[in-house]
């Protein structure tokens, strides 16, 4: 007890608030702000809205909870995450399995567990937690990082939760796990030769993966190659998204005004397709601002990783950077028709409590890493 208290006190003292990354914090806040405004704009003409809490209010509540968590986590030394990596891994697997068993049905997928009236998607949390688990493992590999076994074990660690999520079925999140794995392995210094070989193997086995997909997943997946293949069915969403994005032009059609009629054409708009609203309402300029914010955010995260005091901190940072970059690529890529349609949220912007809280938790860890880097450079 005494030791534990002393550790916490010490870990809190070890921080240096002058090192708090204001830029990172600012970009995050701006992205959340974007999400709130866009969600409002999207829902503005939705005749179904108006009952219960509005998404905007909910988002603000989630953001408040998330920011509190952010500051708490930031003020505590992130070492606990590495220490608890084992139990966390077990907990993640357990919770994902639990979600499969008791999850509520949302758009045909068991993806969330309702706690105190608020839907909670463990798959979102599990992404951040798995970054910690993987970082702990990779950090422990040290000089053996270049071995094939590193890649195999890391892959196995990731494969279990990825498989559980895939079976929910949540193909998107499963893909994010793979994106995180590749990004972290790459930046940890894992053997490029082995990675390339494995990647070739995975690409070779892609047809098998496609084969075990549900029909609707497969259809949506390949819409982006030729949206006109099934304009009324699976590709309807994508065609409408392209129309909405395209009609944004340089400066967009204006908030809440933009494509009033278009709104209803894109289901789950305030979630996965939120970028269509950004692009339609605020145009090319608005879209570029969002991309720029993500670019700056990823830059700050990589910087924090580079400067981290230990390998674990670095790995957590590059994991988060990989996750965000991957999600931005797949989400926005999907909306603008260069990526298959999968259910991956746009970090911070997409409406969703679990995603937002998980991300802010991750950002808190990042600040903790930042404030404990002993050797600030740049």
């Amino acid at each position, binding site marked *: 007890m005494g030791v534990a208290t002393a550790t916490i006190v010490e870990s809190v003292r070890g921080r240096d608030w002058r090192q708090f990354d204001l830029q990172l914090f600012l970009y995050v806040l701006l992205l959340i702000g974007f999400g709130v405004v866009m969600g409002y704009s999207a829902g503005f*003409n939705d*005749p179904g809205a108006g009952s219960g809490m509005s998404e905007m209010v909910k988002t603000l509540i989630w953001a408040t909870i998330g920011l509190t968590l952010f500051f708490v986590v930031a003020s505590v*030394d992130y*070492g606990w995450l*590495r220490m608890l990596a084992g139990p966390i891994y077990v907990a993640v697997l357990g919770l994902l399995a639990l979600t499969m068993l008791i999850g509520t049905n949302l758009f045909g997928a068991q993806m969330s567990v309702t706690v105190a009236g608020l839907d909670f998607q463990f798959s979102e949390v599990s992404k951040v937690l798995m970054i910690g688990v993987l970082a702990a493992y990779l*950090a*422990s*590999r*040290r000089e053996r*990082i270049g071995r094939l076994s590193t890649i195999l074990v890391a892959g196995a660690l990731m494969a279990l939760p990825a498989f559980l999520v895939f079976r929910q079925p949540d193909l998107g999140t499963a893909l994010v796990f793979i994106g995180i794995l590749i990004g972290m392995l*790459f*930046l940890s*210094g894992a053997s490029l030769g082995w990675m390339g070989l494995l990647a070739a193997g995975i690409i070779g086995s892609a047809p098998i993966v496609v084969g075990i997909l549900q029909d609707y997943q497969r259809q949506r997946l390949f819409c982006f190659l030729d949206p006109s293949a099934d304009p009324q069915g699976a590709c309807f969403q994508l065609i*409408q998204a*392209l*129309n*909405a*994005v*395209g*009609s*944004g*032009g*340089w400066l967009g059609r204006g908030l809440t005004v933009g*494509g*009033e*009629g*278009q*709104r*209803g*054409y894109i289901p789950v708009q305030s979630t996965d397709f939120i970028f269509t609203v950004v*692009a339609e309402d605020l*145009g*090319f300029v608005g*879209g*570029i601002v969002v*991309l*720029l914010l*993500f*670019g700056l955010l*990823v*830059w700050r995260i*990589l910087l924090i990783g*580079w400067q*981290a*005091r*230990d*390998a*674990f901190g*670095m*790995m957590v940072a590059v994991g988060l*950077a990989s996750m965000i*970059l991957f999600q*931005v*690529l797949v989400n*926005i*890529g999907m909306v*603008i*028709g*260069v990526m298959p349609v999968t259910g991956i949220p746009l970090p911070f912007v997409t409406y969703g409590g679990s995603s937002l809280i998980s991300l802010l938790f991750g950002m808190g860890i990042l600040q903790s890493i930042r404030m404990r880097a002993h*050797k600030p450079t740049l």
Partner: protein
Amino acid sequence: MADLNDGRVDLRRSPGRFIAFSLLAVLVLLALGGRLFQLQVVNGEVYAGRAAADRTAEVPVPAPRGLIFDRDRRPIAVSIPSWTVKVRPADLPEDDLARVMARVAELTGTDRATLERRLDAFSGSPFDLVPIERGVGREAALLIGEEAQDLPGVVIAVEPIRQYLDETGKVGGPLLSHVVGYTGPINRDELEALEVDGYLRDDVIGKAGVEASFEEALRGTYGTQLVERDASGRQLKVVETVREPTAGNNIMLTIDADIQRLATEALTWGMDVADVSQGVTVVMNPQTGEILAMVSLPAYDNNKFAGGISSEDFSVYLADPDRPLRNHAISDIYPPGSTYKLVTGIAAMEEGVTTPDRQWPTYGCYQIPGAPRGECLYDWNRQGFGPLAMVDAFAKSSDTFFYQMAIQTGIDPLAAWARELGFGQLSGIRLPSEEEGIIASTDWARQQGRSGVFTGEVAQAGIGQNVIAVTPLQMLNAYAAVANGGNLMRPMIALGETDASGELIETYEPEVVHEVAAADATLQTMRVGAREVITSGHAYNIRDLDLPGALSGKTGTAEFGELTDEGTLPFHSWFVAYLPSAAGATDADLAIVSFNYSAVVPGNVSAEVVKYFLQLYYDLDTDLRLDPNDFSLLTAN
């Protein structure tokens, strides 16, 4: 725990990989930005156009239907706002259907099966609104509106429906139902034929009477609006009105609703006292062909149709043996009996069979030439009249005289003169469902698979029996042609079309179908004969009416149908008459026909009906109506 204080050397940091990763990130963002540029800036217009096309649609805007007025500008058919219950199938969950329909049925008072049948019958998109009950009461409409939350997919719409009025401006469909007709929801066949003309799935269309025959003018021109819709087809807002709807033109009928009332009253009385099941009275201006009244009884209530008739009400009408939905004046054909002697007389004189003065013997029973001895055709007067010339034969309605005329003339010339007087062909009145009738001729017989018409049948044709069937309107029109000096008119039901303010914008001119090819003297002889029918013939006390002008006319009876309990055939009586309605005038401007089907009393009910109508029409003080027991005083023929 040791790892907590690991130094920064625990894992080699690879600047190369960091740089590579950063470059990848930049590349990803640049690619996304580039694609965004391509979508929004380079091809923005294309997508914006597609998006606009997707969410906007041109929808038709119904035009207010034209009204129908009588010749005195009394409104007869008007449009009133009414509530219609509609269902958007896409918004009504399948497993909720039964409950929702049951509740709507409860609130509207229509049975559930009917509502569901109407919903099932609809073939459009599930996002279309399907009208399932029109003419819903205000109360029910408000209740359904209040329960909207519990009735998913059910919508209350305000739509105009027809209301049919009588001569006093009160709701009263039956007075003019056969003339005005009614509107109703378009059916599948009609839609198929008319979709190209812009008719809509939930459209209303004239189904009978003037509503049907003047549909084009009454409907107007639908407008078009460009509306913005969401994905489920709900209309969000009107972008612009592409074309304003043009209200339909109002139709002004030739009918005078007051005269229609008087004719209805007279006919109703006659049918009542003589226990007649079907009756017709038509009043016309013989100079122009304008129909002033057209009564067919029993009538139906077209207001029941305005909001979509219930299947019960409809099957009651259909099951009625007297066929109240049919306009007996134009849609049913009956043997004309002695009234047809007009045709035989004209034909005989024009074909040179006889002259106005030539006398012919008449018989109690006329031996048909070439038939075995004893096979004779009776005169209604079994004693015969002795020798008669045309005028007296017509006035006394001698059957044996006209048997001879018909046989001497021959069936084909007789048929040709019938056609000359408008029989055996459509009169051309602008009302739907007109019948042509049957006029025996050699061609007709061949169509029956026979070589020709038997001589006995030719004789029968001469007195309008057996092989001759006409509509009451054709009969009236033939006498009108004789009365007006030989112009076969096209009967008119409408005077013209007016705009919304009642100004006539198109006047329908009287139309002469053709001039009857008979000599003036021939027609004059028949006019004299028709006058004699009233003055010295057997029309009994009609001559005592204090009329402004000289009345001429002809009675007729046909015995056909099923034997009564007494073993006689039912009496079907005709009376057709015309007169100038001003003192001293010679040109008849009023012509009336009455036909009563299946009377149980002998005698001419129709003559009584016309007599009573004239009393009412000229507001005469003396009531000359006979007691039904004395109807036989009016000899049937």
